């Protein structure tokens, strides 16, 4: 993929592996994407697709024995994978922030909200405690936490789930980061609270020009929150493009299957479309296209199994505004190039 001078974050051919005694797990394979300033990017996929490992490896939070085997992560043109832990600490939490799934486990239960916020501020900035308190209160106000002065004295368990997630977002915003990575930010929350958090995240990203990477298994959340989406399957990106395109006109058989399996896509009380089989474990991914055993299109129009699907890993091809890694789509485009472009 060509270097994009505008990109805030650029990931190129990233490969993350967990060497285990039983064999190696390749959690992220040859993965490339970029994120622009102020852009909201979604990463969608089912459990075991490697979404969270991807997020953790961007922040160098991989737990052993996981490591980045190949590839580059560039932040404002600066290579991150080769930084020492000491150098990375200056970035993490400061320029790159993360929001985790469960707000209650993210926050330290034995420290007050105020202590946690002020600690993080003082670690990166030379601020007096009084000054840090003012900043903390200001950030809590931005995420619409009521009576922020009082919240600073409270412990996480005294707050509800939705309020905790706001506090976590406020902490992520404390140092005015350039990128926020949110791993399933609303999964632990009720729908009414989820709607509030989605609106809040959108507003904050627009106001502060922050790049947001949202990881979710929920296409509804991705659809509301992001402008561009990557679909992951077995460690690879199978499709990427504008979120609207992907939801309304998915090209990759897996993305199509994922969307068609949603209850909304079928009339009530009718059988849902289902993808046969299940996601392979990352240690035994099928050869060729990882999706091929579950794919309905692995046969050629003549009714023979397509050899490419079983033997070769599909490379992304352009289809409309999307990039799709699928031999079948590639064949369609090759056959009717003009028609594909038109749609």
């Amino acid at each position, binding site marked *: 993929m060509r270097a994009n001078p505008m990109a805030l974050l650029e990931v190129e051919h990233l490969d993350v592996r967990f060497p285990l005694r039983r064999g190696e797990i390749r959690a992220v394979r040859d993965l490339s994407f970029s994120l622009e300033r102020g852009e909201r990017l979604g990463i969608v996929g*089912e*459990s075991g697709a490697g979404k969270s490992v991807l997020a953790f490896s961007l922040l160098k939070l991989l737990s052993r024995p996981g490591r980045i085997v190949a590839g580059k992560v560039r932040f404002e043109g600066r290579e991150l994978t080769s930084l020492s832990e000491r150098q990375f600490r200056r970035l993490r939490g400061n320029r790159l922030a993360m929001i985790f799934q469960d707000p209650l486990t993210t926050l330290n239960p034995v420290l007050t909200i105020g202590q946690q916020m002020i600690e993080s501020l003082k670690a990166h900035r030379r601020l007096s405690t009084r000054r840090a308190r003012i900043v903390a209160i200001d950030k809590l106000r931005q995420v619409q936490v009521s009576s922020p002065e009082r919240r600073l004295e409270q412990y996480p*368990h*005294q707050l*509800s*789930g*939705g*309020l905790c997630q706001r506090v976590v977002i406020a902490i992520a915003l404390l140092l005015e980061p350039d990128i926020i990575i949110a791993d399933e930010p609303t999964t632990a929350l*009720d*729908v*009414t*609270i*989820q*709607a*509030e958090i*989605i*609106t809040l995240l959108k507003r904050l990203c627009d106001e502060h020009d922050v790049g947001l990477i949202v990881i979710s*298994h*929920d*296409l*509804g*959340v991705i*659809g*509301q929150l992001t402008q561009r989406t990557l679909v992951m399957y077995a460690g690879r990106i199978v499709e990427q493009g504008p979120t*609207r395109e992907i*939801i309304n006109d998915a090209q990759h058989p897996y993305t199509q*299957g*994922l*969307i068609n*399996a*949603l*209850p*909304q*896509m*079928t009339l*009530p*009380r009718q*059988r*849902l*479309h*289902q*993808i046969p089989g*299940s*996601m392979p474990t990352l240690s035994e991914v099928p050869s060729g296209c990882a999706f091929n055993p579950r794919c309905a299109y692995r046969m050629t129009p003549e009714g023979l199994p397509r050899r490419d699907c079983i033997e070769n890993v599909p490379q992304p091809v352009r289809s409309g505004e999307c990039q799709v890694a699928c031999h079948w789509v590639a064949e369609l485009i090759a056959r009717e190039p003009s028609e594909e472009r038109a749609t």
Partner: protein
Amino acid sequence: MTQPETLETLGRAADTPEPLVSVRRLRKRFALHPERLLPWRFDRRQRGWRRERIHAVNGVDLDIQRGDALCVVGESGCGKSTLARLIMGLVTPSDGEVHYDGRRIDHLNARQWQPFRRRMQMIFQNPYASLNPRLTVRQALEEPVRIHHPDWSRDRVGAKVETLMADVGIDSGWGDRFAHEFSGGQRQRIAIARALSVDPEFVVADEPVSALDVSVQAQVLNLMMDAQASHRLTYLFITHDLAVVEHFATRVAVMYLGTICELADADTLFAHPRHPYTRALLAASPRLDDAFPGQLRLSGELSMPLQAPSGCVFRDRCPHANRRCREAAPTPITLDRGHQVACHAVEEGRI
């Protein structure tokens, strides 16, 4: 607008047959754990907290007709799981009655419960926790069959288990494996097979697909709908996912803080929601076809039902709340086709 009536006199229609399950004025209070009693923690010496209770289910009336798939939907903490457990006899009600097929079952002892256990089964949310890790799949499926049919021969039990496994799409070669060798979707299939093993007529499913991925969720929902058709099941389905409700339910009960605020046929509820909470819930659930979360927004969150609240339970978050809502709890009124709403504003025609 119709006159307020009590639920006692209501059926879905005049010719409605006897409901399979009916619940009357059901209440469950839980004593609060002292550590959880947040605002009063420093007051421990005054022993005041001992009297604090959570009103998890607060006067629920509900009928479940044969063949229905009744979904109970609500946010976490609204009491929907407690309601399911009360009906299954897994927790004892503080007050009220549960009738099954015309017989009162809420005060039975374990021995008296046994014949009902065969007719009523439950599927739990987390298939990782609901299957015994020390039993093979075959053993797990044989156990309930043996208990409820002590007179069956070994071969007959074996044959029953084989059919069950085929029914839910478990390869019979997997029978000697243990639960941990399966994925979440496969485990949930095993849990469903186990519930079906005694040929029940009523199945309570508490968030059976919430822990599953979308593609697996579709497989499990299909399986449950197939089972409903082939075994003529009646479902009580607890979930927080409105998309699943819209797909699966024939009838829907919306719960808020221990009470049912709206009860209607599924198509009616989704086409014409009346209660402000139902409307807010529908607006908040993300849809694929629009890029914006719903406009009808709620402020605040579900509070804890510590005292039996005066007035309407939803009044603090309701945009239409007035003085009457703060003073008196609304009684359910029936609109048409068994569509029941407990809301003063709807009753007065304000919304």
